[in-house]
């Protein structure tokens, strides 16, 4: 009836070609910069990284570590982002499908849909705010991506 799998979905329009965006989101250096809270990203295998992050959102602050990997890649079109992060305050497992589609002339629409599953204290205590957290983090991610694209 009620699922604590947090739905993650939305879209973001970015003024860049799907080619540029595709390269950037597969680049660990860029990912490290634009993903909220990431402190380090270490490549352990093709498209698989060991991630250490420190997330501070209002009342909650946690040091996470675990894996981040990119699967089911379809060049410039779509991929699946798999996140598995653990911390003392709880664990997060997320799978987010990302789709790129050209929009207007020079823009690309990024569509993302997926779910995040929480456990531990985060799940028990954070229910009231989790959907807002996901939304804010996504926005931060794409804003940072835009900024990164502008800087290039």
């Amino acid at each position: 009836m009620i699922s604590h799998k947090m739905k993650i979905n939305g879209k973001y329009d970015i003024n860049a070609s799907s080619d540029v965006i595709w390269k950037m989101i597969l680049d660990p250096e860029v990912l490290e910069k634009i993903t909220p809270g990431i402190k380090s990203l270490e490549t352990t295998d093709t498209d698989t990284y060991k991630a250490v992050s420190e997330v501070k959102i209002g009342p909650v602050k946690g040091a996470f570590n675990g894996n981040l990997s990119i699967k089911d890649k379809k060049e410039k079109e779509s991929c699946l982002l798999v996140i598995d992060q653990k911390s003392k305050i709880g664990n997060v497992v997320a799978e987010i499908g990302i789709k790129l589609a050209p929009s207007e002339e020079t823009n690309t629409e990024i569509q993302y849909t997926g779910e995040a599953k929480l456990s531990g204290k985060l799940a028990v205590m954070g229910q009231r705010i989790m959907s807002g957290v996901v939304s804010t983090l996504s926005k931060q991610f794409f804003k940072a991506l835009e900024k990164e694209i502008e800087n290039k």
Partner: protein
Amino acid sequence: MIPAKFDYIKASSVNEAIDLLDKHGFDAKILSGGHSLIPAMKLRLNQPEVVIDISAIPGMNTITEDGDEIVIGANCTHNEILKSDLINNELNILAQAAKTIGDIQVRNRGTIGGSLAHADPSADYPATVLACEATIVAEGKNGSRTIAAADFFQGIFTTALEDEEIITAIRFPKVANGNYQKFYQSASRFAVVGVAVVKNGDAVKVGVTGVADTPYRATAVENAYDGTSSAASHAVDGVEVMSDHFADTEYRSHLAKVYVKKALEA
């Protein structure tokens, strides 16, 4: 429940607080009333190394009139706000919002500055701050600046404050005709939906809290306002509506419309 260890420093001036923030950065948290921070620390969801208590800084808990504005010190408690004659007479909408926060004990400790800096997406003040077009006065390393309400709330628990800035005061224009309406979450008593409406002649300004990850100005309602409450149907236009156990997207959207309507009609 006991928080993890931390150092506690009671700042005696704004400058001292800013210096401390600058020094400790990510590891520090500002404490004012503590009603958001301390429970999180007890649950160990947050383990700051340094807690900087700004509650004793002189001059930060006054409510004064400055021309057409009411200036409220960041350390004013909800209780001080709801009891202030000045606010009741010149900015009644804020007293209405303050009355709905927490309970007696919480209102005796919680502060307006703390609430705004915390930026809980379901807190009551933000809707009012937006609808009144208040400005937030922040002080940091580079001195003092004012931030328009519209620019202040940037996401869940996220504001335009820099890491080493603190809110020292909030400046509200006087509001003759304002109204705050709230639908309570039955457990926490936060707002599932909170709507602040400020009317001025033919124009209306509408602030909404609880509905999205961040409080927002319902500009679609404002633009469609025709003196009746029919514009309420635009309450969530263009808004990504939150969903939780108490109110899913459909119900929350509906409530937003109902409460905008109520506030427009009040």
